[in-house]
């Protein structure tokens, strides 16, 4: 049976390779994607409109800020869904010990290495978040790096050790705060006379030009994204690794 299924797989693969020949050369300035007026508009105007050197962040957080806001909401909903499914489902197994659940002291080499690394990781996460519109990075990446530092604590000691620093209710509060920050900046620019997420209107409350207002508002929404992603990543790990019991380590 396995060998029969190989036939369509190989057939489709050959077809895809055949179709890929029509693609333009990599990096070709004459390709349709590079020729479209949208692409050249962003390339020519990003620096003038927003003063942001990293075009990717400008498109992500400003030109299509509405998309990014709901991407953040999707991350939030995913975290809520995992919580809703797993929370309490581990109860039926309580009391019985799994084969890997042995009493063990945290390894001294691992814990000391983690103790040294976690501050560096967290400062790097802040750098990635705050520098996201000047160099590669941004809210999503910074948030994931930040969440990974909490996961590292949970891996090196056990989950209880990490939950003392980042309890689950606090996690969800921070995740919700992230979305409120993002939407709040959107609504603030609406109340100041612009459209939703029209950051340029923030010049009325910030002592800067319209372009720099967009620059700073982008940092604001990236911080919101970072909040949500950090806490959802950690909540995901905490629930998945313990089937929602939130006790013990891996």
């Amino acid at each position, binding site marked *: 049976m396995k060998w029969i299924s190989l036939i369509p797989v190989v057939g489709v693969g050959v077809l895809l390779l055949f179709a890929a020949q029509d693609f333009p050369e*990599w990096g070709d300035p004459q390709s349709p994607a590079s020729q479209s007026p949208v692409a050249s508009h962003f390339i020519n105007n990003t620096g003038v409109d927003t003063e942001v050197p*990293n075009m*990717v*962040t400008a498109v992500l957080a400003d030109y299509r800020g509405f998309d990014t806001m709901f991407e953040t909401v999707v991350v939030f909903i995913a975290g809520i869904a995992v919580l809703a499914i797993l929370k309490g489902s581990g109860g039926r197994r309580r009391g019985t010990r799994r084969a*890997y659940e042995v009493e063990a002291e945290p390894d001294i080499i691992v814990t000391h290495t983690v103790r040294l690394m976690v501050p560096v990781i967290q400062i790097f996460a802040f750098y*990635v978040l705050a520098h996201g519109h000047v160099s*590669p*990075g*941004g809210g*999503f*990446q910074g948030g*994931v*790096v930040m*969440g*990974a530092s909490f*996961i590292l604590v949970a*891996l090196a000691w056990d989950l209880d050790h990490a939950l003392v620093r980042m309890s689950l209710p606090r996690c969800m509060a921070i995740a919700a705060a992230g979305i409120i920050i993002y939407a709040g900046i959107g609504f603030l620019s609406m109340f100041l006379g612009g459209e939703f997420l029209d950051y340029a209107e923030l010049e009325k409350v910030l002592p800067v030009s319209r372009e720099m207002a967009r620059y700073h508002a982008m940092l604001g929404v990236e911080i919101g994204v970072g909040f949500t992603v950090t806490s959802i*990543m950690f909540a*995901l*790990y905490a629930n*998945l*690794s313990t*089937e929602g019991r939130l006790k013990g380590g*891996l």
Partner: protein
Amino acid sequence: MGLELFNTFILLLLVVTALAALRVRDLITAAAVLGVYSFLMCLLWAEMGAVDVAFTEATVGAGISTVVLVATIFNLKRKSND
């Protein structure tokens, strides 16, 4: 020429790691091999100049998803049946 060789090498390694992740019986090993796959993708993207995508792939693809996969596998049987 050097860049082309580099690309070909990474693409070949990608195929090898993808097949290895499918063939390996131990699921933890498969998750680790998928992490290697993500890092190769990250290298490829960084080389093409899409540094933002490469960054996301390195943090999310190789970092968090590997950890989440391992965390999930610990709650399952470790050996795959097929």
